[in-house]
């Protein structure tokens, strides 16, 4: 079990579904949702939340800055 655990919050309406964050994630946490937002984009979401370590790579590469990253020590 990882010593740290992270969480990603995606602003669904701001996401344009470019999937650059999906590629940047080293632990395959993110994926594009089957549903679309009001603009018709498949937004990014945490498909595999327990694998997230909060490295913030997704937030750093996001061109629309719609990702907020949190990280805590695993209890």
């Amino acid at each position: 079990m990882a010593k740290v655990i992270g969480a990603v919050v995606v602003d669904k309406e701001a996401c344009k579904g470019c999937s650059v964050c999906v590629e940047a994630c080293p632990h395959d946490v993110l994926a594009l949702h089957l549903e679309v937002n009001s603009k018709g984009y498949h937004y990014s979401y945490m498909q595999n939340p327990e694998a997230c370590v909060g490295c913030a790579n997704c937030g750093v590469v996001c061109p629309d800055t719609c990702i907020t990253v949190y990280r805590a020590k695993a209890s």
Partner: protein
Amino acid sequence: MDIQDIIKPENLVYQKTKLLTDTPMHYCPGCSHGVVHKILAELIDEMGLQDKSIGVAPVGCAVFAYNYIDIDWQEAAHGRAPAVATGISRVNPDAFVFTYQGDGDLASIGAAEIMHACNRGENILVIFINNGIYGMTGGQMAPTTLEGMVTATTPNGRNVELNGYPMRITNLIAQLPGTSYVTRQSVHTAGGVRKCKKAVKKAIQNVLDKKGTSFVEVVSTCNSGWKLSPVASNKWMEENMIPYYPLGDMKDSVKGEHSEN
């Protein structure tokens, strides 16, 4: 641990900087412009320069840059951003003045302006987005378009006999004694973004220290113009653009010293 227990203000590691406005960016999904805007906004915020920063927006996709970063901006005619920035920095010597230009703006119509602004060693930062294409007008050939690259105006690929060779304008600029820091970066990976941020931070510091012109080229993608998906265009850029436009610092000195290149 439940996700709601992690999502607390004390655990925050990354969020949108307050200098980026809530206006949704008009850029296509996956466009490098958004990342470079973010790097600039984060650094201006971290270095406490919001009140003394003046940006000069170009003509090109980044023409609306003034809607996205909450600082003072001036719009310039096509290619003339370095000339406008010259005037602004000369009457406001304590301001941090930067231009933000694309390859059609900087390397083609504005080639004379950028050469002479850099040669005079104007105390400005130049951000140069090189995606090898005129993105806004529909993907026509730019001076930086690679040999054989298909664009709207070179449907059979760029022919160097007819159209000339792809221009490495950053290498030319590194030769000019007025420049202090000349570098080429990319923003297609998280590591690349972090490196680019370091380079831009150093360039901003050089401007504040009045060392001369700092020039940061960012090798970028234009997935709409290249007719590829954002992820595929990042890969294409890595395989084709970066071998021709290698990343790294080209010059790191002070104004008046000649480059080793």
